[in-house]
C-alpha cells in the first residue's frame, strides 16, 4: 500500500523540507491512540527533526468521535493564520478537555484573529480539505488511527516502533 497523493505544498509540514525521510501521519484529534502517539512523535522530531520531514493529514472518525472533525476544521482554520502546528499540539496536549467550546478557547489562547477565525471555520474549503485528507487516507490503505507512512509506504506499527526505526536509521 502506498501513499496517494504524494506529499505536496497543500500539506502541513514540519521538520526538514525535502528530507530523505518523509513521515506522514493520518490522525484523529479525539483518538486516544493518536493522543498516546503524540508525545512519542514529539520526541522523535526533537531528536531527529533535522533529518525528517513530518506531515499530518486529517483522518477524523466522526461517527465515533464527535469532536474529531470540528477539531480538524479548527486546526485547518489556525493554519490559515500560520498556526497549524501550534493548534495541532495544543489539541493533543489537552485531548481530555476536547469539545467545541474548548476549541474556541484554544483559538483565543493562540492569539488567532477571532473575526477571521470564526469566518474561516464555516468555509466549505476547510471542510473539503478535511474530506480530501480522509479520502486520500482511505485510498492509501489507512485502516485506523494513527496510521503512518514512511517514504510513501505504509508503516504497519505504532509510534514507538517508528521512533525506534528512526533511532536506527537517522545518523
Amino acid at each position: 500500500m502506498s501513499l496517494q497523493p504524494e506529499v505536496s505544498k497543500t500539506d502541513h509540514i514540519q521538520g526538514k523540507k525535502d528530507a530523505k525521510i518523509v513521515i506522514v501521519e493520518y490522525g484523529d484529534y479525539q483518538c486516544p491512540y493518536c493522543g498516546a502517539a503524540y508525545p512519542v512523535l514529539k520526541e522523535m522530531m526533537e531528536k531527529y527533526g533535522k533529518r525528517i520531514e513530518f506531515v499530518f493529514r486529517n483522518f477524523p472518525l466522526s461517527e465515533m468521535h464527535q469532536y474529531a472533525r470540528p477539531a480538524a476544521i479548527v486546526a485547518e482554520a489556525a493554519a490559515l493564520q500560520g498556526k497549524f502546528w501550534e493548534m495541532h499540539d495544543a489539541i493533543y496536549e489537552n485531548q481530555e478537555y476536547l469539545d467545541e467550546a474548548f476549541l474556541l478557547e484554544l483559538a483565543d489562547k493562540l492569539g488567532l484573529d477571532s473575526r477571521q477565525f470564526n469566518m474561516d471555520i464555516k468555509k466549505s474549503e476547510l471542510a473539503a480539505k478535511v474530506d480530501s485528507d480522509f479520502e486520500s487516507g482511505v485510498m492509501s490503505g489507512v485502516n485506523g488511527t494513527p496510521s503512518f507512512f514512511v517514504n510513501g509506504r505504509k508503516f504497519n506499527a505504532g509510534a514507538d516502533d517508528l521512533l525506534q526505526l528512526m533511532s536506527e536509521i537517522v545518523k
Partner: protein
Amino acid sequence: MLKKNDIAPDFTLFATPDQKIALSEFKGKNVILAFYPADWSPVCSDQMALYNEMLKFFKKYDAEIFGISVDSKWCHMAFSQSRNLHFPLLADFEPKGEISKKYGVYNDTEGECNRALFVIDKEGIIQWSYLSPMAVNPGADGILEALEKL
C-alpha cells in the same frame, strides 16, 4: 473461498431483531460483504468504524455494505448502537455460520468467520474477494479499487 466470477450465494439473515435482509433484494445494486470474526473485538471494531465513515464513498459507487458475523441479532444491535453504525450487521447465527461456509470463509477452529471481503456486482456476481489475516484490519482501499473497476 469464493472468487471472482463466482455467483454470490443468496441468503436471508437477520439485520435487526425483527427484520431480515436478503441478498437477492439488492439485485441492481453493488454489494460489499464484510465477514468479520466477532462484535466487540478490537480489530473488528476499527474495521466497522472505518466502513461507517465511508458510507458516502460507497454510495458514490451505488454500493451497499453489510457486515456479517456469527454473533446474534441482539449482540449486533448492542454493538451497532455502541459504535453508532449506520449500516446493517447480519447475523449468520442459526444455523451457525451457514452463509460463511457457503462463501468459504468459516473458521472451524475458532467457530467464527474469517475476515473476508467480497464485492458483488449488480448482477449478483462476485467481482473481487479478499481474505485478510485474522488480526489485520484490511482497510477499504481494496474495496474502493474493486468498485472503481466495475
